[in-house]
């Protein structure tokens, strides 16, 4: 059936709660209100206030409590009202949760999830894409789906995973895209990228909302006989090195496209991986298309200027093709 990205996530969590009584949700306004974006709408009626817990505004306590519950064998799904607020729980995530298994061997099957990303005029505190801080934080799995199918399959995989997973839901996609989602139970494996468009001239390595930007650009470029291959990473930690290497090996030219700010961003990591894996296959420099190095400005013309756009991909693709 056709579902929105949001509804796919909602169903994924719902089904896991139905299937496994050890799954429960906690977060701010997730109960009667159903969450700021209504991802948990109806959950409290179905699963009761014990399993759908409205918490005080205390992100470190939410993460801490989710982690503690996970140590007893529960599988908490904690919502950040916006992923911008994840910095309020940073130490708890980085030093408590992420290091647990490495240091003393306890699994911590929890999911931290919430809306991230721009293009909705959310301004500097409601548009952030903070995934890099967690990519550079061993012990966490970091997931950023682009389609309803992947979103549902990956949230289910994250809930079943025995590691702490951070699940970034792109709020621009929530209700703007629909896609086919099978009725049967399925999961999408964490850590596997996906070629969403095959092409021969150059590769775009990207994820989340930018996948759609890349696809749009590919349509335009197809008319100019520039044939893009698009790799949707889906999981940004751990990264699918093989898939990255394979697409570069094939097209020999690569653009890395991400929404978050450039310096210290994911494109750097991928550039390093490409150097390590397939340096000899490169026929042109690795190109980055990213957000600017500042906070995300609020005003639409400024936000538009700040964020990567279809025309950026078109322009850089032409340039790289000609290199």
């Amino acid at each position, binding site marked *: 059936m056709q579902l929105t990205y949001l509804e796919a996530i909602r169903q994924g969590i719902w089904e896991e709660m139905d299937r496994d009584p050890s799954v429960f949700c906690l977060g*701010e*306004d997730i*109960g*009667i*209100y159903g969450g*700021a974006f209504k991802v948990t709408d109806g959950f*409290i*009626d179905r699963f*009761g*206030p014990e399993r759908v817990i*409205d*918490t*005080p*505004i*205390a*992100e*470190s*306590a939410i993460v801490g409590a989710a982690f503690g519950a996970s140590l007893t064998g529960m599988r908490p799904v904690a919502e950040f*009202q*916006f992923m*911008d*607020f994840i*910095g*309020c729980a940073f130490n708890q995530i980085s030093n408590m949760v992420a290091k647990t298994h490495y240091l003393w061997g306890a699994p911590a099957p929890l999911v931290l999830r919430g809306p991230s990303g721009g293009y909705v*005029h*959310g*301004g*500097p*505190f*409601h548009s952030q894409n903070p995934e890099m801080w967690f990519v550079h934080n061993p012990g966490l799995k970091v997931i950023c789906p682009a389609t309803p199918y992947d979103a549902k399959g990956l949230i289910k995989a994250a809930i079943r995973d025995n590691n702490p997973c951070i699940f970034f839901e792109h709020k621009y996609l929530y209700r703007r895209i629909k896609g086919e989602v099978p009725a049967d139970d399925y999961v999408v494996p964490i850590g596997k990228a996906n070629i969403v468009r095959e092409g021969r001239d150059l590769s775009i390595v990207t994820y989340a909302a930018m996948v759609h930007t890349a696809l749009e650009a590919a349509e335009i470029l197809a008319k100019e006989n520039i044939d893009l291959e698009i790799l949707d990473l889906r999981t940004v930690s751990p990264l699918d090195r093989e898939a990255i290497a394979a697409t570069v090996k094939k097209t020999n030219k690569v653009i890395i496209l991400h929404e978050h700010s450039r310096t210290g961003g994911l494109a750097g990591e991928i550039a390093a991986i490409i150097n390590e894996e397939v340096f000899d296959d490169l026929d042109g420099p690795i190109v980055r298309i990213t957000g*600017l*190095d*500042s*906070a995300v*400005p*609020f*005003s*639409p*013309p*400024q*936000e*538009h*200027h*700040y964020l990567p756009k279809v025309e950026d991909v078109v322009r850089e693709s032409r340039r790289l093709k000609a290199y």
Partner: protein
Amino acid sequence: MAIKKKNSKHSPNGSRRHNGASPATTIDLRTYSIPDLRLEHPDLSVRQSTEKDGHVRYEVTGNLDAPVPPIRDSKYLSKQQCIEIYRYMLLNRKMEVALENLYKQGKVVGGVYFGLGQEACSCASAYALDKDDWFAPMIRNQGSLLVRGFAARDTMMQYMAKADSPTRGRDGTSHFGDIEKRNMVSPISMLGDLIPVLSGVALGARLQGRNVAVMTYIGDGGQSTGVTYEGINFAAVQNLGLVLFIESNLWAYSTPSEMQYRCKDLAERAIGYGIPGVIVDGTDACQVYDAAREAVERAHAGEGPTLIEAKMMRMKGHAIHDAASYVPKPMFDFWKKRDPIARFDNYLVKEKKWLSSKENAELISEVERIIEAEREIAINSPMPEPESAEGGVYCEDGCHDIKPKYGTPKVKKGTGGYKETEAAVHLK
């Protein structure tokens, strides 16, 4: 505020005694007085209940028919000052009506946040500050901005993300600041972070020989954040002039205050900080002012922070998108009768007769004219250029000439304290 003169370092709210010398029964009984200026003590309480249809809803209990209390006469405010505060409250409300209309006309970027029902709290609190004092509003304190000398257009342009807005489009709502003239720190969305920041402002000023009051606000929800605790505690230990209003408006987005804390009143937390706490009716401008002014004076006297809990209700949804259907309707009815402007209007016009009906009507239309004019200016500001997204991430050379705002900081005097430390020796 009864605690004003009690300037002991410990337990300013209370006294303690030991009852009994016999080991087996020693118990420490402590009595704390939390001054409560309110003239009524609503006993409403909200909880989740599962209804027959399986839905979980909020249910309110308590006396929903209690009569509306009178306004408490201010100990400090003159007639003129009362009218001035009233005027700011009108401006605050009319500006928000204008914002709502701008939103409906599609001119606002993002949502609109309202302080409906909380105008007394915003306006009378900020009115208690002196010019040199500092403040930082939260998102509902659009009235505080007006009192502190910002124009309605500033906030309006922020909401419309205009080029001439105080942040030139980069941020919205009341997220802007001014360290040059109006001593305002910009809020950020993350709740509670302002509290240590304002404490730091007081610390900076004190190092320059000045005890300033630093006022900010936090919601009944936002006060659950750890940084709130760290910030108040820092001010308490350092004896800094923080004046913190807890806007106890019963809801944090959709979450009732019963689910944020378990003590009865948030002012009780003052006990654990070792600072004075006081409760006021947040819909009564006089109470708000009196408590704020006494706290500001404590700050100026170097007596440390004060926690003021203002009780009221958020009379709209969290923001314009939120119909607040989770709020039990009788609560709106109860608090609607306690509308701060209607009550103050009644107090000034009918009770005190400080304003004639005609003067009141004139005042209202003057305010409307101002807001209309501000609206025009705001609307006519252009949108920013796309390229204006760039630059300004760093303060580049010469972008600011930074010097202590209140003159040269105090420095330990004389060389008596000077010691031939390792470093000093090395310096030669």
